[in-house]
């Protein structure tokens, strides 16, 4: 799958990941955690947290910017926290032309899904494999 315009992303054409949280700090920290656990040479993972003025909330502008930067032509997996983050990504996907072609909302737990998605994307998994790995994180029970 290739986007119409390549605007950024990974030189080796791996799936990009965008983390959408109400909080800039949460999105950035989860990206950092996933990078740390995924090892060297990871696929692109971009935070899109909070509002442009640094407050808590969801910004369509930050999401579209991050998705373009994460897009290397192999698709972009968007992980979201809750409420308006979910609804904003869904509404942007419904717009049709706001997000790169091959952008997809992933139904996954935010932290565990981000790690699973990045490990899979970094290993060269395609968009289906990345979204499946992230969604599978729901199956891991903690007690």
């Amino acid at each position, binding site marked *: 799958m290739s986007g119409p315009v390549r605007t950024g992303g990974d030189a080796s054409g791996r799936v990009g990941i965008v983390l959408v949280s109400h909080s800039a700090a949460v999105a950035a920290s989860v990206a950092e955690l996933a990078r740390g656990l995924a090892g060297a040479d990871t696929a692109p993972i971009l935070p899109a947290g909070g509002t442009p003025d640094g407050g808590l909330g969801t910004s369509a502008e930050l999401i579209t910017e991050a998705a373009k930067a994460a897009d290397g032509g192999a698709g972009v997996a968007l992980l979201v926290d809750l409420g308006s983050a979910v*609804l904003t990504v869904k509404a942007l996907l419904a717009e049709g032309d706001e997000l790169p072609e091959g952008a997809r909302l992933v139904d996954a737990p935010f932290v565990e899904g981000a790690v699973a998605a990045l490990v899979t994307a970094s290993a060269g998994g395609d968009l289906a494999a990345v979204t499946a790995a992230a969604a599978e994180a729901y199956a891991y029970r903690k007690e």
Partner: protein
Amino acid sequence: MSTETYGAGFFRDWLTAAAAAVDREAGRLTELDSAIGDADHGANLQRGFAAVAATLEKEPPATPGAVLTGAGRQLISTVGGASGPLYGTLLRRTGKALGDAERVSRTGLAEALAAGVAAVSRLGGARPGDKTMLDALGPAAEALGDSFAAAREAAEAGALATVPMLARKGRASYLGERSVGHQDPGATSSALLFAALADVAGAADAVEGTS
């Protein structure tokens, strides 16, 4: 029976009046939202509708459908809370349903709004009775088939009817029983939209032919 039709100017007037109403009532919306939400509904909608009104004034679209789809898109990108994608989807889908008709009848708008309301329900996964904006939007869109005044009354009644409801969607749903006894902010802002519509329609009908 009215055969009046409404052009792009009417729809611009509607959203401009809605922006003024949201601006006027922002404090009340935020107060309602601080009881069961995160106290940002007034400010979020104020920001979104101010952007919509400014764009409508600067670059007025030529058809009713274009007015609503453009405004919807802008709400999605400027609001910053869940009401942005929800109201954005409402206006976009309603606008798309209107197509590129230059003038729209009240019943035509009612049908298009029903499509918009259905899209909001799909996006948020809420149903009537969940204490959301749908509890005002659904009855209002239906009553618009009768008259603008009926739609205003249905929206207002729908918003008041959320008071005893238990919230099943959004942040308020985490409160469980404690959400009972509070009016839903989203249903309240939806009532403002339909009040603005009825006001603008009343003014348009009073000076027939200039809408």
